[in-house]
C-alpha cells in the first residue's frame, strides 16, 4: 500500500514501475486508489445539495454528494489504470452568490499527482 500526503503544490509519487504518461497503462491491471481530504466547514457543503467534485486527469469527474448525517463524505475510491494522474477536489453547495440556488463551486484544492504503477 502506498500512501501519499499532499505537502506542497504538487507531489509526484513514483513507486515501483516507472509511470506511463497520463493514464492508460498498457496491459497492467487497474488499481484501486483511495482519495481522501479534510471536510469543508461550510454548512452548505455538508447538507443536501452540497458535496465534493473530484477531478482526475483524463477521467470523468466524480461526484461525492452529501447524503445524510452531519457531513458530506470526504473520501472516494477509484479504479485507475497505470499512469500519472493529477487530482483535485472542489467543494460545492446549493447556494449561489446571488442568493439563488444555481450552486457555488470552490476553487480547486491544491493538486496532487498520483502515480499508479
Amino acid at each position, binding site marked *: 500500500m502506498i500512501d501519499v500526503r499532499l505537502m506542497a503544490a504538487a507531489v509526484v509519487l513514483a513507486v515501483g514501475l516507472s509511470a506511463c504518461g497520463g493514464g492508460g497503462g498498457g496491459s497492467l491491471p487497474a488499481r484501486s486508489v483511495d482519495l481522501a*481530504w479534510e471536510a469543508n466547514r*461550510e454548512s452548505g457543503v455538508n447538507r443536501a*445539495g452540497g458535496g465534493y467534485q473530484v477531478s482526475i486527469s483524463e477521467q470523468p469527474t466524480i461526484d461525492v454528494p452529501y447524503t445524510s448525517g452531519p457531513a458530506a463524505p470526504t473520501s472516494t475510491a477509484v479504479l485507475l489504470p497505470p499512469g500519472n494522474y493529477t487530482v483535485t477536489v472542489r467543494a460545492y453547495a446549493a447556494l449561489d452568490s*446571488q442568493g439563488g440556488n444555481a450552486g457555488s463551486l470552490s476553487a480547486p484544492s491544491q493538486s496532487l499527482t498520483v502515480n499508479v504503477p
Partner: protein
Amino acid sequence: MKALLRSIVAIAALAGVALTLLNQVAAVSFEQIGTGAYVAGEALVKFKSGSSAQDRAAIVLARGHAVLASLNQPGWVRLKVGTGQGMTQVLAAYHSDSSVETAQPNYIYRTTAVPNDAQYGQLWAFKNMGQTVNNSLTQPPASPVYSTNNPGAPGNDMGIEKAWDHITDCSSVVVAVLDTGVKYDQEDLATNMWNGGASFPNHGFDFVNNDNDPKDLNGHGTHIAGVIGASGNNNLGATGVCWKASIMAVRVLDAAGSGTTAEIIQGINFAVSHGAKVINMSFGGGGIDPALSDAVTNAQTHDVVIVVAAGNDGVNNDLSGNATFPCNFTQPNLICVAALDQSYALPNFSNWGATSVDVGAPGTNILSAWAGTSAVISDPLTSGWTFATTTSGGWAFGSVTVGGTPTPSLLDPPTYSSGQYSNSTDDRAYKAFNLAGVDAAVWRVSAAVNVVSGDFFRSRYLSAGGDPFPGGTLVSEDTGVATFPNIRAVEFDISGCISASCSLGFQLQSDAAQRSIGVAITRIRIDTLTFSTTGYNTINGTSMASPETAGLATMLRAYNPQYTFADVVNAITKGGRATASLAGKTTSGNAIDVMSSLAYLNPPAGLTATVQ
C-alpha cells in the same frame, strides 16, 4: 420562518443535485425545467379536458406517484412524485402521455427579505437605490451629513438583502463591541444584547470604571452595536446586519472616546474568556503596543475574529509614520476595514493600505442607534469668566489669529504671544456651566500651551461651582511643553461635573525661575448627552465600516457554525466584490459583499491518495 427555512433546505437539495449532474455527465439540463426553485418530490400536471378522474388516477398510479390535490384551476393536479426520480424524467414521462396537456415543477416563490424598520430607506449600505441620506436623525439635531456622493450610485451596497433570505438571526454567535459602552436599553438593541447571567446583568463589563455597567456615555459604541445587530423587522429605527444578535458590551473608551492599553486588553480578554467569537474595535492609535498585540494573539488562540477600523486620517497606513494600531497588526485573525462612500469611492477621511488594510465597507452617512440626544455648549470666550492672580497680569480676554481669523481667546499673559507670564504666580480662570439634566459631558479645549519645566498649566472641574483650584478634579496637567504656534485639541470626560453650576477652570502656576509665552485658549466646547431609548444618529467613519464587517463575520459564523477564524477571514476578503477605489489600497481590493461571502466555499484541503 421555520417553514421558510425548510423550504430553503429543500431547494438547496434539488439545486445541488442539478449542479452535480451538470458537472458530471451533463445528462440532465436544469434549464429544461427552468432555474427556479421548486418543491422537492412534487409536480403539477394539467390533464386534457377529455380525461376522466379515473384515467388521471391510473396514469399517476402507473408511475408510482400519488395525487395530493386537485387544484381549483381546470385540469391541474398536484402530485407527489417522490425524490427518487429526477424532475426532468418525471416531467418527460407526463409530457409523453397523450392525456396530459403539460407538466411542470411546483415552483417556490418567496418574498425578498426586506425589513420594515422605519428608517430602512436611509440605510444605503444595505440597499443603495441612489437615495439621499438626510439629516433628520443626526446628533446634535440637524447636523450636516457627508455631502460627497450623497446621493451615490445605485447598486453600491453590501448585497445583504439576498442574504437575509437565508439568515437574519446571528444570536448563536456572541459579538463583542469594545467601545464607549452600549446603551443596552435602546429600543433597537434591548432584545439583542448578550445574556451575561447574574454576573453581568448589564450585558457586559465596564473597564473604564471597573464595574459591570457598560452604559454608553458617548453614543459611538451604541452606534457600532446598532450597525452590527439593531433589531430588524421590528418597525423601529434601523436594522443591523443581523436582525437578531447577541451583543456583548465591553466599555473600554470613556465619554470622550479615549481609552488605554490597559483597559482595551482587559476588554479583549474578557470578551474572549466569556465566549465572544467576533470582536469589533472601531478605534486606533499610533503606538507600537506589544501588550495590545498579545491580546489580539490571545484572541487568535481562542479562534476569535477581530475586526478593526483603518482610521480617519485620510492617510496610507503602510507608511511607517502613519501606522495605526490595531489595524497594522499582522495577526491572521484581524481584519482591518476602510470606509466607502455612497458611490463606493474612498472618502477623504478614510485611511488605506495595500498591506495593512484588508477590505472596504460603507462608512459615510451611516444611520444607527444612539445613546440619547446630543447637544453642544459653546463658550464665546468673551464674558462670564472669573480671573484671579497672585501677582499681576494673569488671565484676560483677548484674541489670537487662528487660520487667518481673529478668534476670541483666554490669554495668559494678556500680552500673548509677545510677552511672558509672571514668575511665582498662580493665575486662575473659571466659569460655571449649567449641565443639569444631562447624563454625560465632554469638555473639549483647543489651546496653544507654552510653559517651561517647573511651571504648570492645569485644568480642573468642580461640580459645586466656584474656584476649582485646588478642590476640584484635575483632568490635565502640563509642564515643559511648547506647542506654539500649533494649537492642541484635547478632551476630557467631565461626567462627574454634572450639576447646575459645573465650574471649569484653568490655572497657570509658575516658579521663580525662567518663564515662557504662556497659554492661549482658543476654543471651549462641552458636548453633552442626555439618555433616551429612542436615539439615532447618522455619522461617518471607518468606525462604521468596521461593524458592517463585524456583523458579516458574526453572520458567517452563525450560518457556518464550524467556521474557524481563518474561514471567516477568507470568506470576507475573498468573497468580497472587486472595487476600483480599493485596488492597490487594500490587501484584497474588495468591498465586503454579504451574499457572496455567505456563498463562498473554501477549497478543500488535505488531499491524500492511497494506491491499493
